């Protein structure tokens, strides 16, 4: 095994100049809460000491996917033992909607339910058991309406939450008509439940005036603040939202946390008592949105070498009952329909389907993974048609460096490293030799088949909504020399806090233990963007760096005067402020600065440069840069049952110059496994009435420890360096590795293809459950028999 340990990664990072100068940035520091995590001392919202008079809330969910509410009588609920308040749509003092970008997400259903699991009313009682029991006493009469439950039905009825969009470059139709070879295909890609281990939760505490403080497990405290204010009809300045940490987010707490926080706040304001709302796992999975499932139709024209000449995609996604974040998610699917490949003439149409299912939402990759699934299926289809190794076709279509380097949205790819990264991975993973071994194995093995695949990832970094690309930080230095750091980013396990703390420690030349990262709160840094789009450390790291440098320069000015040197000659290193051969401990320098009446607190602000995008024409530069990676997966499939085992995985991923190789490695491995789960074991299943039946881990299967191969070789790309001026030339790492899991899916397709000699790709949709794999094998065998 050749696993890159964080130590060797650090050694590698440290060997690079000028990184060798650095004391903290680039080191594999442990997560700032590691000690608390392993000892049970880390406080999640449900662990915080409960205030006096706390009430517990319960939300009654709709049993129908689509129905008119003819009668909603909650009198018996209100009269039940222990109940303090019951709220329905008519009891919302402000706006009864928590839609983040567009309206359409009622807090409580108002006469109409549009998915099974929708919030109808909420009750607060002195215990959760009493609140739940009371909620069952409501009288709800429904007039059931016919539901639209899936993409096919929505497309048939032209039911959309938002207008369809088209992105194009060149003339796809003409290129398709002229191409020597042409193929068409349709694929379905399933959705995904976030399955953050900590379910959605909020606790709202009313204060004086009409102020309210909300502890929320959210990736977007500013949005919670705003929506709590709007639902209560009070200004933003009366609402504080605080988030210390989440037990996982993955996009599922970007917009979805708001409803929980708002209901807790409404009940708290109504009763004047603190209220906690914690969804149990089943309610969480029924009530909150998931990754969009997609239907992808494609039509590709290519030459005899497999080079694409023209291509058209028609994407259709299940958005559910409301727009939520579906505009940006589907845009991102369009942005990633090229993945790492140059598409000379391209047209991408995107339909945003309305269904009577939960409103789908952000999930790590945000539409990008689904977009990539389309083009990777095209690569597979071309290769099978030409009877070539799919890797050969993939490489032939990679973006070029100086030509063939313009995306379907007219952005020039300036930082393309995919050819050399893939070459290095193919070499280190022994792809060519293993391809021969797999072929030989399959020739001699009748019932067990193996498959091998290498797939690349190119993922655009930045929010595609321009205004969200800004961040703020607030740094205080106290007179004992300790530093308090706050920024707009939230910690959900991804290691943002430690990375930003490393940046600040580096600026001050301090060890990490002098930097205290405090809970994210709308009181300290206002008007923040969600911690999303992989941009957390890029943006907050830069903002915190600006704040730290402001204070550092002030201290340097004071010390320079004392040392009689230029401020530019002052350095902060090893806990001291040095210059002209003299040195002061940092705390002493701080004390001097205070005594000189110079401010030791500063804000920092950052706006990502170079971005511009026209949402009408779908042209511009929506991304500051791209993150790259690639994975090789080898599987073994049982052709009698469709079960599989993952034999080996090799990953090479570009994180630029890593801020923290241990944290980055964790993101890569965890992202890969999550992506693999999406495409294999994780299946969302609704019954004919539109009720989700996989709403707990007993029925919804995320990867377990044994699904991760013993032979798992993951490396950070040693040549990685961000050509853009991102913080310390690092690259974002939150989302891109998820798409490395596509290699597993294509290895499965490769194994299925080995079950029958036909010049076409395996008919396998995602998730590749044993059932889908077996049915694909059966179909393959029938096709091969018919062809023979």
């Amino acid at each position, binding site marked *: 095994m050749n696993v890159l340990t964080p130590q060797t990664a650090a050694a590698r990072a440290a060997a690079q100049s000028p990184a060798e100068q650095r004391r903290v940035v680039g080191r594999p520091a442990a997560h700032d809460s590691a000690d608390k995590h392993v000892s049970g001392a880390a406080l999640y919202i449900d662990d915080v000491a409960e205030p006096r008079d706390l009430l517990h809330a319960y939300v009654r969910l709709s049993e129908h996917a689509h129905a008119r509410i003819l009668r909603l009588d909650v009198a018996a609920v209100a009269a039940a033992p222990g109940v303090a308040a019951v709220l329905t749509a008519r009891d919302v003092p402000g706006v009864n909607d928590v839609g983040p970008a567009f309206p359409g997400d009622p807090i409580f259903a108002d006469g109409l339910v549009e998915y099974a699991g929708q919030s109808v009313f909420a009750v607060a009682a002195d215990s959760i058991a009493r609140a739940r029991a009371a909620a069952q006493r409501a009288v709800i009469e429904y007039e059931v309406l016919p539901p639209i439950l899936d993409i096919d039905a929505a497309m048939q009825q032209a039911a959309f939450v938002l207008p369809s969009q088209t992105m194009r470059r060149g003339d796809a139709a003409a290129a398709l008509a002229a191409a020597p070879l042409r193929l068409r295909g349709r694929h379905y890609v399933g959705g995904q439940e976030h399955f953050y281990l900590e379910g959605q939760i909020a606790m709202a505490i009313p204060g004086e005036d009409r102020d309210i403080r909300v502890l929320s497990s959210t990736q977007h405290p500013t949005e919670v603040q705003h929506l709590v204010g709007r639902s209560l009809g009070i200004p933003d300045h009366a609402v504080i939202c605080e988030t210390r940490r989440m037990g996982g987010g993955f996009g599922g707490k970007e917009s979805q946390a708001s409803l929980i926080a708002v209901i807790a706040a409404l009940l708290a304001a109504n009763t004047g008592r603190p209220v906690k709302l914690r969804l149990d796992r089943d309610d969480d999975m029924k009530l909150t949105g998931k990754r969009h499932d997609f239907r992808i139709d494609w039509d590709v024209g290519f030459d005899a070498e497999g080079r694409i000449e023209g291509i058209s995609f028609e994407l259709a996604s299940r958005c559910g009952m409301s727009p939520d974040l579906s505009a940006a998610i589907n845009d991102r699917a369009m942005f990633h329909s090229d993945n790492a490949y140059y598409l000379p003439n391209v047209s991408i149409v995107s339909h945003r389907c309305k269904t009577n299912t939960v409103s789908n939402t952000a999930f790590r990759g945000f539409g990008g993974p689904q977009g990539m699934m389309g083009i990777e299926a095209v690569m597979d289809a071309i290769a099978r048609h030409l009877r070539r190794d799919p890797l050969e076709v993939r490489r032939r279509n990679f973006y070029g460096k100086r030509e063939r380097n313009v995306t379907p949205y007219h952005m020039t790819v300036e930082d393309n490293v995919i050819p050399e990264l893939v070459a290095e991975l193919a070499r280190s993973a022994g792809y060519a030799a293993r391809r021969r071994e797999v072929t030989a194995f399959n020739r001699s093995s009748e019932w067990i088949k193996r498959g091998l695949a290498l797939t690349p990832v190119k993922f655009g970094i930045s929010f595609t909504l321009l205004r969200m690309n800004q961040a703020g930080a607030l740094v205080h230095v106290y007179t004992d020399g300790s530093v308090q750091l706050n920024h707009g980013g939230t910690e959900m396990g991804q290691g943002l806090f430690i990375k930003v703390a490393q940046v600040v420690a580096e600026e001050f030349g301090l060890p990490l233990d002098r930097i205290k990262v405090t809970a994210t709160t709308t009181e300290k840094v206002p008007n923040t963007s969600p911690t999303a789009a992989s941009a957390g450390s890029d943006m907050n790291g830069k903002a915190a760096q600006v704040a730290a440098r402001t204070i550092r320069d002030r201290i340097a000015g004071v010390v320079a005067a004392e040392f009689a040197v230029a401020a530019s000659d002052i350095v902060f290193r090893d806990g001291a402020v040095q210059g002209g051969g003299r040195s002061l401990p940092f705390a002493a320098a701080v004390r001097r600065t205070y005594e000189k009446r110079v401010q030791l607190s500063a804000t920092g602000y950052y706006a990502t440069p170079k971005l511009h995008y026209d949402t009408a024409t779908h042209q511009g530069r929506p991304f500051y840069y791209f993150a790259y990676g690639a994975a090789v997966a080898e599987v073994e499939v049982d052709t*009698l049952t469709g079960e599989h085992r993952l034999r080996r995985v090799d990953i090479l991923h570009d994180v630029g110059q890593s801020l923290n190789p241990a944290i980055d490695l964790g993101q890569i491995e965890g992202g890969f*496994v*999550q992506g693999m789960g999406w495409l294999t*074991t994780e299946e969302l299943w609704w019954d004919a009435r539109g009720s989700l039946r996989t709403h707990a881990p007993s029925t919804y299967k995320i990867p377990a*420890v044994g699904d991760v191969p013993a032979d798992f070789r993951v490396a950070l790309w040693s040549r990685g360096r961000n050509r853009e001026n991102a913080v310390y030339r690092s690259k974002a790492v939150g989302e891109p590795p998820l798409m490395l899991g596509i290699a597993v899916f294509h290895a499965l397709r490769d194994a299925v293809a080995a079950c029958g000699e036909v010049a076409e790709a395996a008919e396998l949709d995602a998730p590749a459950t044993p059932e889908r794999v077996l049915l694909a094998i059966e179909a393959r065998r029938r096709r091969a028999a018919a062809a023979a």
Partner: protein
Amino acid sequence: MGETIRFLFGDEERSIRSPAPTQTVLEWLRTEARACGTKEGCAEGDCGACTVVLGTPDGEIMRYRAVNACILFLPALDGRQVLTVEHLRAPDGTLHPVQQAMVDHHGAQCGFCTPGFVMSLFALYHAGGGGVGRAAVNEALAGNLCRCTGYRPIVDAAQAACGGVAEDRFAVAAPAIAARLRGLARQDSLAVAHDGQVFLAPRSLGELTAALAAHPAATLLAGGTDVGLWVTKQHRHLATVIALEHVAGLAEIAERDGVLSIGAGATYDDACAALARHWPDFGRLLRRLGSRQIRNRGTIGGNVANASPIGDTPPALIALDATLLLTGAAGSRRIAAEAFFLGYRRTALAPGEVLERIDIPLPRPGERFATYKVSKRFEQDISAVCAAFRLTLAGDQVADIRIAYGGMAATPKRAVAAEQMLVGRPWQRAAIAAAMAALEGEMAPISDMRASAAYRLLVARNLLLRFHLTTQDAAAMLEDVA
């Protein structure tokens, strides 16, 4: 009869008079003990965030078993030590070796699942020396879900910290703790009345049948890995609960007169070694049943008596021609396992009767047995289809074959028609094909979230083929890559 439970919470003795019979240990920890390190992730024993360790004396040492606190009822603590993540750090602040390994290997990201992993690792740390391979780590941790790390660093932490001889302060204190627990051991039977609920923990079969005669509608509670969910998921009110855990002899595992007897109260974990010795495939099946936490509590008797059509052990027991001993106040009777399942979750148990024992005839020379489980996820998943086969050949001819399936009907079901196509015929593909076809006539699977009816039928057929192929030494099984 006593109404107070006494146990050690860490090294601190606690006693609770009239404990709420169906309050979960997790709820007690978080709301009454105010020990919030232990988390709720699913409330159904599937994610492991609530994992705590139960200690029982075993001579001078302590046996530590990881369990799911979210579906463990409070009275189960009686006479035991319960350890949570808060107990592991030494008084001087030093982390326990498994905690330190998790820090060193970056095994926590969001941290929410971490206390559960730490406790599973603690149990593994105390599971004895001899190293710990990847398969053993998988087995110990399959019941702990992590959504952040991808598990690799946790596996590394496990292999770094576990597998040696335990030498932490718990090992040092074990004799003293064992002695204290012996001092807490109950001499009478527990009988609790709490807020309209009754909880009885009889200590003999006679007491048990008497209690059941007095409370014919009572819920029988063994490991609680199913009954726990009636409370945490369905929010059912269980008026009277009779616990089987303390009934003397009910957990006995014995071999006599060519029969392996598994007491209905034996946990999966306790029964696994005996079953695996005679039928290695049965052992493999059990290691995939639930998780370590579930197998430490759940019982084979419970798996049979709850009569789920997708229980993992009934097909194997039917194929092995097991006999069930049913006991009531009036005496005992025997019934073939295959005759026990009358309909969807309906059994041949008469009111007042309990399942006392499962008798499995030991394999005769030349007998082959195999059982296969197919599910979406390899570990800790519920079967889409489970199949079991017992074959005896006479030369090339099938002298005897028993075939049974789970997931193919409203009950675990023997495939009589398929068997008939095989008995007396050559053990060759022609007969197998005929038997595969016969399955379609006698099985009636449903489509649900686990699999479609068509897939289930196809797999049921193919598993028979797989069994045949394996008897021909054909490579028809996935390689174990752990």
